[in-house]
């Protein structure tokens, strides 16, 4: 159970450039990170995000993070990376070991939002699940539909999704509009739909530890 505050706050606005801990994060987590900072009034953090579209091209992630770390080392008391392995095949961990920087545990954001142990426990049942987070539900059209060329070539749909059975929307927030969008995305790619509210999971816990 998380002890991190997740209720909206209008009294604290996050301002980059004032923290002593740099969070290097995937752009797909930016909104969630800023929400958590604001509702918990954490003043320790600055945030540097890398392009969320690298979700589809993980080969850019390690060089991008290396550059960010090297540009900021010495300017901060510490650096923490908010990326899963994210398809880097262990190369991200190798880089972070070399640089002496830690990251949030887990293979990807689906796992640390759900809780790594809980995600692993359902792995066999979820083998044919295609996961959407709040970010992916919000940007499905751009990142998935257009990003994978389905807007131009819908005939590719079976090649991409033929082995999947359902879309599982692991929601960070209780947002009816996003749930509707996730359901529409599932329908569009011809899969069943399941909603799971998981909240911010271990993202919140890990940030709290470093706040």
């Amino acid at each position, binding site marked *: 159970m998380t002890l991190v505050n997740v209720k909206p706050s209008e009294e604290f606005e996050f301002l980059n450039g004032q923290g002593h801990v740099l969070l290097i994060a995937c752009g797909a987590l930016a909104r969630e990170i800023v929400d958590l900072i604001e509702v918990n009034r954490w003043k320790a953090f600055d945030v540097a995000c890398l392009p969320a579209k690298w979700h589809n091209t993980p*080969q850019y992630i390690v060089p991008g993070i290396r550059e960010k770390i090297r540009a900021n080392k010495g300017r901060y008391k510490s650096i923490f990376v908010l990326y899963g*392995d994210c*398809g880097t095949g*262990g190369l991200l961990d190798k880089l972070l070991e070399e640089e002496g920087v830690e990251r949030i545990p887990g293979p990807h954001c689906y796992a640390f939002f759900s809780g790594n142990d809980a995600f692993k426990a359902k*792995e066999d049942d979820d083998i044919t699940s295609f996961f959407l987070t709040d970010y992916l539900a919000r940007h499905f059209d751009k990142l998935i539909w257009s990003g*994978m*060329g389905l807007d*131009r070539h819908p005939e590719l749909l079976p090649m991409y999704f033929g*082995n*999947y059975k359902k879309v599982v929307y692991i929601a960070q927030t209780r947002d009816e509009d996003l749930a509707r969008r996730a359901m529409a995305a599932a329908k569009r790619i011809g899969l069943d739909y399941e909603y799971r509210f998981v909240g911010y999971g271990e993202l919140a816990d890990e940030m709290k530890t470093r706040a």
Partner: protein
Amino acid sequence: MSDEGELDLRSLNDEELTQQIHDDLYDGLKEEVEEGVHILLERGWTPYKVLTEALVEGMRIVGIDFRDGILFVPEVLLAANSMKAGMFILRPLLAETGAPRLGKMVIGTVKGDIHDIGKNLVAMMMEGAGFEVINIGINNPVEKYLEAIAEHQPDILGMSALLTTTMPYMKVVIDTLKEKGMRDDYIVLVGGAPLNEEFAKAVGADAYCRDAAVAVETAKDFMKRKHNQMAASA
């Protein structure tokens, strides 16, 4: 690479038509590729010549531009679909006319993983290069690999994974082959987006193949070495 307007493929000579098939493959124009294949066959080309000079060479160009970041996954998939359509025409003819066989490969995605785009591309390119390919699909436990190996006696075992969480299963398969004293009987090639050479070495594979074109070249190279070794020990 598309030209404007209708082009009568029959008006082209063989060289121009082959070039046009390369372009049509590049543009993912399935029907045009099918038509081009039919025309070359009507002109007396052997199915093997059509396969290698028109389709495989066309996909080789697609592979290079994908590697160089000029083409992206959707374009490669469209090209692959077009090549698949061409191969569908050629496959029965190749069987009839007897094309050279370079070797046999069993290929599948490992347990826990349902991703097969890259694996299917490799299977297609290997077939195009003259390998007999037994594609055992997705989510394969070690037993399924062993079953396929026993049944088909391949030269090469290919394993694919897209997930960081599933790629370690390749080691389970390779270790099982070792335990059974079978590891050295097969060339083991591995591939998939999160893999790298270091990982391939660590799990005991013979090679990591970063894309379908590399897989074909690596497989050919290993088969050549295998034949040389056999000749030397004969």
